């Protein structure tokens, strides 16, 4: 029972996010209108992705230190769920952008950069699939994972800020990042980030356990 408490917490938090996200009061802002509620669901996907990829990075470094094959499985499964969050982020972002910015894809620097970032991570899985030798696969993909994370951070957090972006709201654009999250929005937003990240960890640990069973069977 002790092992499972945080899974119950995950479910409670996400129930709260769905109910609070739709029913609590939000500021009435031009252009965004009711779509501001997408903030509670779209942005936590990106936070979830970054958290999952950071955990993946941690396990890749651990693998290079200790050469424990379990670290390699963990790194690849956390990267996997991270990319799932990233794809959800980009798809929900396009949907939201269609209604607020007028186009599915407007070549916004942050949109482009996150697409490149996801491609870098897809290449991680291509790389893994193309190597036969287990030890070699683990080592090369761990090094690549460190490179991928280091490329992702400037792509998502530095480069889009150096130029005009629809995201940070230059030229009076009401894209959400233009606004400071106030305390009432944070009341749902932060639990959403924590809830989705915990759900990501839950799914990742389950996949890691299945991979361990597979490994035991093939030995």
């Amino acid at each position, binding site marked *: 029972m002790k092992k499972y408490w945080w*899974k119950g917490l995950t*479910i409670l938090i*996400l*129930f709260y996010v*769905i*109910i609070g996200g*739709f*029913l609590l*009061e*939000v*500021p*009435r*802002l*031009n252009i965004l*209108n*009711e779509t501001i509620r997408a903030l509670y669901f779209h942005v936590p996907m990106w936070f979830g992705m*970054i*958290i999952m990829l*950071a955990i993946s*990075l*941690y396990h890749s*470094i651990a693998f290079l230190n200790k050469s424990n094959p379990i670290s390699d499985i963990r790194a690849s499964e956390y990267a996997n769920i991270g990319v799932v969050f990233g794809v959800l982020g980009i798809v929900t972002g396009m949907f939201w952008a269609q209604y607020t910015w007028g186009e599915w894809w407007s070549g916004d620097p942050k949109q482009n950069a996150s697409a490149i970032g996801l491609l870098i991570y897809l290449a991680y899985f291509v790389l893994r699939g193309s190597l036969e030798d287990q030890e070699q696969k683990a080592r090369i993909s761990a090094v690549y994972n460190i490179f991928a994370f280091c490329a992702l*951070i400037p792509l*998502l*957090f530095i480069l889009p*800020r150096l130029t005009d972006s629809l995201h*940070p*709201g230059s030229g009076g654009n009401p894209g959400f*990042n*233009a*606004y*400071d*999250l*106030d305390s*009432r*929005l944070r009341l749902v937003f932060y639990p959403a980030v924590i809830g989705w990240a915990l759900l990501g960890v*839950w*799914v990742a640990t*389950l996949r890691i*356990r*299945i991979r*361990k*069973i597979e490994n*035991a*069977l093939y030995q």
Partner: protein
Amino acid sequence: MKRLMVMLAMLISATLNAQDKIKIQDSDYNNSDVAMADIMRSEGKIYVVVGVLLVIFAVLIYYLVRLERRTSKLEQQLDNHQENNND
């Protein structure tokens, strides 16, 4: 531990934001010039939407829990099998 701290610092710095943001005012919550789904809310139909989402989410979570139970069972079977082989 040191490595963890460095990673934590990286994550925190990644969420730092530029300062030139617009504050959300209390008046934004009462600005009736901006169209919102007020009628849908006053008719209580929003509860239908929330209800549908909650049902879907609850069933997906139930499915995930069942999947986990099945995985635990497989792990146990594998453990028993390996013990038998070692005897």
